[in-house]
């Protein structure tokens, strides 16, 4: 056996093996587990870099297992452009997060999640490389349960959040299995390509079947990516998961659904489609696009009224996924490029935001925003990471979120999806609200005396955040860093590449030079800086030396905590939307379903719990034994 022929398989096998191996050290050394974790991911990242531009590749392992009417089961891994890009960027971002984790998991903050996370990275490679359904589902399942255990990490509240997440994952996986089995039963092959081709060719003969399959796949990827009816799990799971893992969860894991939609759902709506069209798009995809924009607005509204910083950013992630979903539903080269570009950008800036918040929590132990404040004066680097992150998240130049958000809007303009775009602008403006709230409540405003002793985050945490911050800035200035590889991968999806280079990109209604926009901003900043220097000198005064209508705050018994305006920050606008958000709650609907399910299961359990259970069981067994004996 030549290892060189199984490089893609090794990317799955090695992390899983290392993860299992590192379980041995659970009692001895958590530090060692984290080092093993870091080493495994570093290996993957090095592989990803080394593998750049190596061209398509297919690897096969045949297992002597007969399934259905196949003599042997073939596991296939294929390296294609888009899968490789997702793999490369996820592992590099995770490797950066891992540097943070090394420092974060000290004696007081350690969680035992390293082995599971290592295994999860194996699943990560499996999802992006799988060429057949068996490997894909195995990887998908491995990802599902490892992430469940990580989110739960042995705490009661986290356990509940993890259960919520896992239940939704189960719904998604069941839908995936159903879609796969229908396809496999019809084609007699486990290859993903042949199933998709089969579905795509059935529009004329059996459109109901294709729509059913598309619906099932949609449910799968909606649950994973937290799109509208399933948008609640991030706010629970991201918030309760270990802080460093939240960055991974929000940055990387939630994107599996996006990858699935691009590579498994969109091919169904290829050239063979002959159903109804809306604005030149298949009706099904147009509905997905509307759901995407609605998710964006809905996530924003939830984020605005959230006081817990991790929950707020989780809702923000949901909102961004909405944008991505809409972009890819346009099913055009521009839309898909925009979706992938925004996916990668979001991966980077949301990870940096979550890591910055994790560093704050590491030093203070607080998660609720109104209890914090003034962290910027104590942790300036962490503050800058957050600042650049939210500028990117708001889609403002010169950070990386701008290019992709602009391209998403261009994709919508191209298709004349103007009414959904209104919701997009609403969500995008609403984003300023909650992002500023985070900036103000956590980092600015008054510094509470309780946090007088707080120090800047440890070196490794700074390093990892700093790398992400530089990436946010670099890609913001040179969007081609991501857009050129994405553009090169487009032909493989059957799409014509866009017109772009390292600095600029051509949209549908305008073309912009993103680098020059960044330079213009920096130029104006230089000019203003000169103006600032020309002005007469300023003098620094204490934070409590504030304008308070001629009174001294301390005379009134007002301290820093009371001067920090952070709780119920957007009360006026919350009041406007309260009837909407309270009146229409998916949470309550799910609650009702859960309640009914519980009732049924209780009834069944009650029947089994009766004192006669033993006798009934014996009787049943006797009947079965009798039947077997009689007919055998």
């Amino acid at each position, binding site marked *: 056996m030549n290892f060189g022929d199984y490089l893609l398989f090794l990317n799955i096998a090695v992390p899983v093996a290392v993860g299992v191996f590192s379980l041995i050290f659970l009692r001895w050394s958590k530090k060692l587990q984290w080092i093993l974790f870091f080493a495994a991911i570093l290996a993957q990242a090095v592989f990803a870099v080394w593998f750049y531009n190596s061209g398509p590749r297919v690897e096969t392992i045949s297992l002597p297992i007969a399934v259905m009417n196949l003599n042997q089961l073939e596991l296939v891994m294929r390296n294609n452009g888009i899968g490789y890009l997702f793999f490369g960027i996820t592992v590099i971002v995770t490797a950066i997060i891992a540097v943070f984790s090394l420092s974060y998991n000290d004696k007081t903050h350690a969680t035992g999640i390293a082995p599971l996370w290592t295994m999860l990275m194996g699943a990560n490679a499996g999802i992006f490389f799988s060429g057949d359904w068996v490997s894909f589902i195995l990887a998908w399942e491995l990802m599902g349960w490892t992430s469940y255990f990580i989110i739960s990490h042995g705490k009661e509240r986290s356990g509940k959040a993890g259960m919520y997440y896992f239940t939704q994952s189960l719904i998604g996986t069941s839908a995936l299995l159903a879609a796969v089995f229908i396809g496999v039963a019809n084609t007699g092959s486990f290859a993903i390509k042949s199933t998709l081709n089969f579905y795509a060719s059935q529009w004329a003969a059996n459109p109901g079947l294709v729509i059913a399959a598309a619906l099932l796949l949609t449910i799968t990827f909606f649950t994973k990516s937290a799109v509208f009816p399933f948008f609640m799990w991030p706010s629970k799971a991201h918030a309760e998961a270990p802080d460093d893992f939240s960055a991974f969860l929000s940055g990387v894991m939630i994107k599996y659904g996006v990858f699935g939609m691009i590579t498994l759902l969109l091919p169904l709506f290829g050239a063979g489609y002959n159903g109804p069209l809306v604005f030149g798009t298949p009706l099904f995809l147009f509905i997905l696009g509307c759901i995407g924009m609605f998710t964006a607005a809905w996530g924003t509204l939830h984020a605005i009224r959230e006081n817990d910083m991790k929950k707020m950013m989780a809702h923000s992630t949901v909102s961004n996924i909405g944008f991505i979903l809409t972009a890819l539903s346009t099913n055009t080269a521009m839309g898909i490029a925009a979706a992938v570009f925004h996916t990668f950008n979001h991966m980077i800036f949301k990870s940096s935001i979550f890591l910055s918040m994790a560093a704050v929590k590491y030093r203070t132990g607080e998660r609720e925003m109104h209890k914090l404040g*003034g962290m*910027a004066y104590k942790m300036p680097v962490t503050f800058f990471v957050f*600042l650049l992150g939210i*500028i990117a998240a*708001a889609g*403002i*130049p010169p950070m990386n979120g*701008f290019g992709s*958000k*602009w391209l998403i809007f261009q994709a919508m303009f191209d298709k*004349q999806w*103007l*009414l959904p*775009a*209104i919701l997009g*602008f*609403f969500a995008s*403006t609403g984003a*300023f*609200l909650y992002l*500023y709230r985070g*900036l*103000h409540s956590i980092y*600015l*405003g*008054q510094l509470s005396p309780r946090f007088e002793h707080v120090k800047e985050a440890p070196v490794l945490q700074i390093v990892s955040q700093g790398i992400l911050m530089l990436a946010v800035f670099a890609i913001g200035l040179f969007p081609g860093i991501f857009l050129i590889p994405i553009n090169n991968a487009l032909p493989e999806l059957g799409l014509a590449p866009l017109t772009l280079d390292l600095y600029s990109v051509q949209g*549908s*209604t*305008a073309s*912009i030079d993103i680098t*020059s*926009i960044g330079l*213009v*901003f920096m130029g*104006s900043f230089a*000019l*203003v*800086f000169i*103006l*600032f220097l020309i*002005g*007469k000198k*300023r*003098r*620094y*005064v204490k*934070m*409590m030396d504030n*304008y308070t209508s001629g009174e001294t705050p301390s005379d009134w018994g007002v301290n*820093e905590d009371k*001067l*920090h*305006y*952070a709780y119920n*920050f*957007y009360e*006026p*606008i919350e*009041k*406007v939307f309260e009837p909407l958000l309270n009146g229409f709650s998916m949470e309550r609907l799910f609650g009702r379903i859960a309640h009914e399910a519980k009732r049924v299961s209780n009834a069944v359990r009650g029947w089994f719990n009766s004192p006669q259970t033993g006798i009934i069981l014996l009787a049943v067994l006797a009947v079965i034994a009798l039947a077997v004996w009689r007919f055998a």
Partner: protein
Amino acid sequence: MMEILSVLGYSFFVMAAGLLYMGIGRKIAARLHRRYGPPVWQCYIDVVKCFSRRSISHNFIMDLGSMMGLSGLLAAAMFIPMASFLPFPSQGPIIVILYLMPIGYLGMAMGVSASGNPLAAIGIGRALTLMMGYEVPFAMIVLTFVASFSSTSLVKLQELQAGGIMNWHMVTMPIGFAAALIALMGMLGKKPFDTMIAPSEIASGPMVELSGKFLGLAFLQHATAIFVETGLIVIMFLGGASNVFEFVAKQALVYIVMASLSELWARYRVEQATKFLWISAGSLALVQLIVNMAGRK
């Protein structure tokens, strides 16, 4: 080198023009109040005075925020084609301008938040809430242009309106123009929509801790914002201009109308203002958008 000089010159011109409109607005407000009012050039005196006084700051973030505030808006102004003059070649992309302006507001917000004054934070909270109010209708107006002309380029919109007043979008899409004016009122923070700087309630909100050159920078930022916002309306609806004087005159006209109208109303509460903007400007813009979408083919 020429480009740097033209950018520099354009920046100063933008700020100077904005300050002039502010001065005219103050004079008109005073006359409507039956006061004599300050001279038109009062704003220049204010800015020079602000920069020549010593000021206080609380920390480096406050300094940085104030500078970011003005530079964001100046960067946005660089993309406004003033009578076919642009400091450097671009198409005048509206979406870019709409996304560059918030960096100014974010910088301002960051600076005043770092002062630790709760009144400033309240003011910023209100300003951002109001921003949601006017950005959505304004974005709908931009979408209207996309629906009709598939373009978000200011240069192209200006070309489309060439050849007489009957080609101006003000005439061809009057409902959208009305919506744009209402949204502009919100953008400028003129009176029914001035809760964020309400002097008597929250001591001028964001400006409460600003002194000396910080106040001067805030002044210049507001002046630049006026230039950008009225400039957008002039190019989008009033046919742009063929020379600088026409452009400035049209901008001044728009600002004068806004300044006089603002004296008619009392202040809205912020959620009322936001709702009003969505309901009035939003529905007008929606009607225009649907009309244009229907008229496309």
